[in-house]
């Protein structure tokens, strides 16, 4: 059953009501109008993508993969693509020491990119790319990914040449200016050739506190012996819905490390898929979720150990305050013949209030007999002994709570010291907001 091409992990039995019909939403006309403006290959691809979307529908909470994400707003109303906007003045996004390669997308359109690129790095947009159809519509797309292909306005295509090591991080700032019930379908395609390496730091943020829908799709292929570091911040506005997917395809001896912080949006679901295409590849995925006040934030991972001798490590933590809900759902599939697989998964969840919810659902499917697979999930509260110890040393309660929450989240950042400061500053700010509401 081993195979070199991405294989659908979504091989679950069909459940009644798990997909919402989409005919009444009127996307067909939107897609037809969009396709009419495109070159023939892209127009045809959009039509095919719409057909897939129509077939797959919008996943509902009855679907096992979407049980923690309420997609009802998407089934109730048509979300037309947000129009182009004049890019507002760029704000510095991160506090990286040293030079960065800054790219900006507004409403899913590439509006700014570096004019001067290091050797071995090529950045293109959709108009400059006609060789990406295989990355735009894939057999394992779910319905919302197919809709992304049908309606996307642009694509950011990044290629790192064989052996090229890009020292400066590529910082991608996704800004949504969409109104209520508008959608942003952004797309990134990244190809790391053999032995190449790059760090990508991306942030999704929204303006105007609109109840819009952000639906990004990223297809990253990590070539043989290539190295990817990926950081994703899901920092949407408090009314937004986010349904992003990162799909990683990792060739032999390739290595990818990712960190994600999901703390924005009213409803957010960050999906990360990994497909091992060659032996001796490894992936580490770490991340944290901070959920409060009617936020429903989920991290979904699916790792396909399709070939032997690969390693996946996952470490996720969530902190949930009053009225919030978090979920971690991690699927690991070890296919027949994927011997010597080493797959580890851990989910730890911290509830700051009685009225807070954390869900953790590891799912392991193992069809090989010489493998090492582990998973663990815990849900708990702040430790009363630790709190009292800090308080007895003079640290006021709200500061003591913040210290312990930061220490908890810091556990996923131990091997990313250059990120720890800025991500923990976000945790600290979040806890500051909690303190004000006490």
């Amino acid at each position: 059953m081993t195979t070199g091409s991405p294989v659908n992990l979504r091989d679950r039995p069909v459940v009644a009501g798990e997909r919402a019909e989409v005919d009444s939403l009127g996307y067909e006309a939107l897609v037809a109008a969009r396709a009419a403006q495109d070159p023939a290959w892209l127009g045809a691809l959009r039509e095919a993508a719409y057909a897939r979307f129509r077939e797959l529908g919008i996943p509902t909470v009855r679907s096992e993969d979407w049980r923690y994400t309420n997609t009802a707003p998407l089934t109730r109303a048509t979300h037309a693509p947000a129009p182009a906007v004049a890019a507002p003045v760029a704000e510095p996004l991160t506090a990286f020491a040293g030079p960065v390669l800054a790219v900006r997308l507004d409403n899913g359109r590439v509006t700014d990119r570096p004019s001067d690129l290091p050797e071995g790095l090529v950045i293109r947009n959709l108009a400059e790319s006609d060789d990406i159809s295989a990355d735009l519509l894939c057999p394992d797309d779910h319905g919302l990914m197919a809709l992304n292909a049908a309606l996307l306005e642009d694509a950011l295509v990044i290629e790192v040449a064989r052996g090229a090591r890009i020292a400066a991080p590529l910082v991608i700032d996704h800004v949504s200016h969409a109104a209520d019930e508008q959608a942003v379908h952004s797309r990134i395609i990244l190809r790391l050739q053999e032995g190449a390496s790059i760090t990508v730091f991306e942030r999704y943020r929204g303006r105007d506190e609109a109840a819009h829908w952000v639906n990004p799709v990223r297809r990253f292929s990590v070539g043989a012996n290539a190295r990817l570091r990926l950081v994703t911040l899901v920092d949407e506005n408090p009314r937004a819905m986010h349904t992003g997917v990162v799909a990683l395809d990792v060739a032999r001896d390739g290595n990818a490390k990712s960190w994600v912080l999901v703390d924005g949006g009213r409803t957010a679901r960050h999906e990360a898929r990994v497909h091992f295409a060659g032996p001796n590849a490894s992936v580490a995925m770490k991340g944290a979720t901070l959920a409060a006040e009617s936020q429903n934030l989920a991290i979904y991972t699916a790792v396909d150990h399709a070939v032997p001798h690969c390693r996946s490590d996952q470490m996720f933590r969530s902190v949930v305050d009053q009225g919030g809900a978090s979920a971690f759902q991690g699927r690991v599939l070890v296919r027949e013949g994927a011997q010597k697989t080493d797959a580890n998964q851990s989910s730890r969840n911290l509830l700051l209030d009685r009225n807070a919810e954390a869900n953790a659902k590891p799912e392991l499917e193992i069809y090989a007999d010489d493998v090492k697979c582990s998973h663990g999930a815990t849900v708990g509260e702040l430790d009363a002994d630790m709190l009292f110890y800090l308080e007895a040393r003079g640290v006021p309660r709200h500061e003591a709570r913040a210290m312990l929450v930061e220490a908890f989240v810091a556990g996923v950042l131990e091997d990313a010291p250059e990120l720890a400061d800025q991500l923990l500053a976000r945790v600290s700010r979040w806890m500051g907001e909690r303190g004000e509401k006490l």
Partner: protein
Amino acid sequence: MLEIRNLHANVDGRPILKGIDLKINAGEVHAIMGPNGSGKSTLSYVLAGREGYEVTEGEILFEGKNLLDLEPSERAALGVFLGFQYPVEIPGVSNINFLKTAVNAVRKARGEPEMPAGELLKLVREKAKALQMDPDMLKRSVNVGFSGGEKKRNEMVQMAVLAPRLAVLDETDSGLDIDALRIVAQGINAMRAPDRALLLITHYQRLLDYVEPDVIHVLAHGRIVKSGDKSLAQILEREGYAAFTEAAA
């Protein structure tokens, strides 16, 4: 400095302290001795303000202020220090960061500016050295992976850095070998000062061989049943607690 009047306290609805009266003046060292279950640790937690220790009667005055009205951190800011019988491990918070946060929280509560980082580091290193603590342990998570003796020494480092007015040391001698006991006792003796009071809570007399108290109290069944000078410790060591606890029962 400290005056406890008719203190009654419950834990889980069960009365543990049943009318404690105790007065400690600045410059004095008092020891409270008593058998297991007499209420020693409860008294220390009530002084520090731990949740779940319900005071039903009485008051605790510290320099004229009623401690019972204050949060634990406010008590610490006034200068009350509790040395824990079981120091808590805090993964992910470094010892030095813990000390820095504590020192500056206390200074902030007193309306003082933060201590400059360099000055603080120097102070902490000096105190750690005096207690023979490996400087590398300052970078490690608070008490994580520390031996019993190292944890107790860490408590003493914290006390030395925070320089409290009143230090309540709960079974600081428990779990220490003789060398560690000497080091810890030196740390305690170094804190003796005319404007500071120390309250040692202990089960055994051996700490008192190294730290001579001015007054010893015997706690039994939630009350102080006997107070006297340091010779009381020898009597207890010889005859045990039985004579006192039976009288109190």
